[in-house]
């Protein structure tokens, strides 16, 4: 499949919240941002193992990197993939805006996210790779 990427121009919300309404509002926001980049005539992916990569560009008091993944994945169900069970591989990365970030070989969308200068989350969905490629 063609890799799909988009940028969420906001600080993320943690899975741990007890406020379901605000968590849902966050998922709706993420879905709307993904929908801007997802081709209207493209159907959700249904038949391949997927890799979800997340890069959180954060300020000095970031949200927990491990607890921001699931709400973002949930938001993409029915739009980018039919079921989040298809996501077999997940990697997430946090980088501080206050520290140097080498953007030389980063995707241009993520370069833009770093240049944006505010907290944001870059998301990329692509085919899962053979295990040995990760290890």
């Amino acid at each position, binding site marked *: 499949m063609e890799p799909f990427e988009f940028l969420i121009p*906001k600080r993320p919300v*943690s899975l*741990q919240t007890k406020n379901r309404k*605000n968590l849902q509002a966050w998922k709706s926001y993420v879905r709307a941002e993904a929908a801007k980049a997802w081709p209207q005539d493209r159907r959700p992916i249904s038949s391949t193992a997927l890799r979800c990569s997340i890069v959180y560009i954060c300020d000095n*008091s970031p949200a*927990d990197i491990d607890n921001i993944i699931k709400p973002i994945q949930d938001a993409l169900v029915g739009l980018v993939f039919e079921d989040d069970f298809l996501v077999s591989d997940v990697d997430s990365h946090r980088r501080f805006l206050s520290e140097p970030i080498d953007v030389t070989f980063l995707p241009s969308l993520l370069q833009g996210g770093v240049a944006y200068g505010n907290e944001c989350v870059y998301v990329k969905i692509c085919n899962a790779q053979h295990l040995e490629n990760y290890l």
Partner: protein
Amino acid sequence: MNTSQKNLHDRKLESLASAYRNEGYVVLTSPTAGAIPFDLDGYSPDLVAMKDDAGLIIEVKASASGISVDRLQWLAQEISTHAGWRFLLLTLEDVDTLNIPLTPDGFPTWSQLLTKLKQVERLIGDDALEPAVLYLWSVFEGAMRKRAIEQLIPVDRLPSLALLNHMYSQGEISVTKIDFFRDFMGKRNRIAHGANMTMTQHQAQAFLDSVSDLLSEWTSIEARQVS
């Protein structure tokens, strides 16, 4: 933690230990996990202060960056199950440590906060916009700190921006409102720092309405939880 931060960290611990001893607490600095009267999954804090059957478990961090609020919230929830025990997170960046209350009771009641909002409304009606915004911010910040303590989100002593950001990431403030509250904070800061600020009654009213809505939401959730 670099050497300078380590020195500041150690001095903070010493001053806290001394302050709590003066208040009659038995204080242990850097205790082992076994020195805590209940199991916290191997966690050992920076300081424990005990008095009678109650106590404080205190974690001191060099800065607000790199804090795992979710992990510390779990600890706060676990500790709160033991009557009389509380968990405090302090950072070397904390605002005015001595003057931030340790418990929700140290802040105005929700009802008093709502009354203060009516006073803000009168200030806006009188076109006293700068005093209105400064006062409204103090109500908003007090409400966030009070709410954080009540919800066992251990960010109640952090600087204002980190507090606001964590309350948002912990789901207490909606994604639809966070930029609005950051804008509010920016305008409040300009006034607090003595800069010129142009604002309309309409803008000040919008800030008031948003804070009122948030407080109504928090107090109604509170009422449901109590009942």
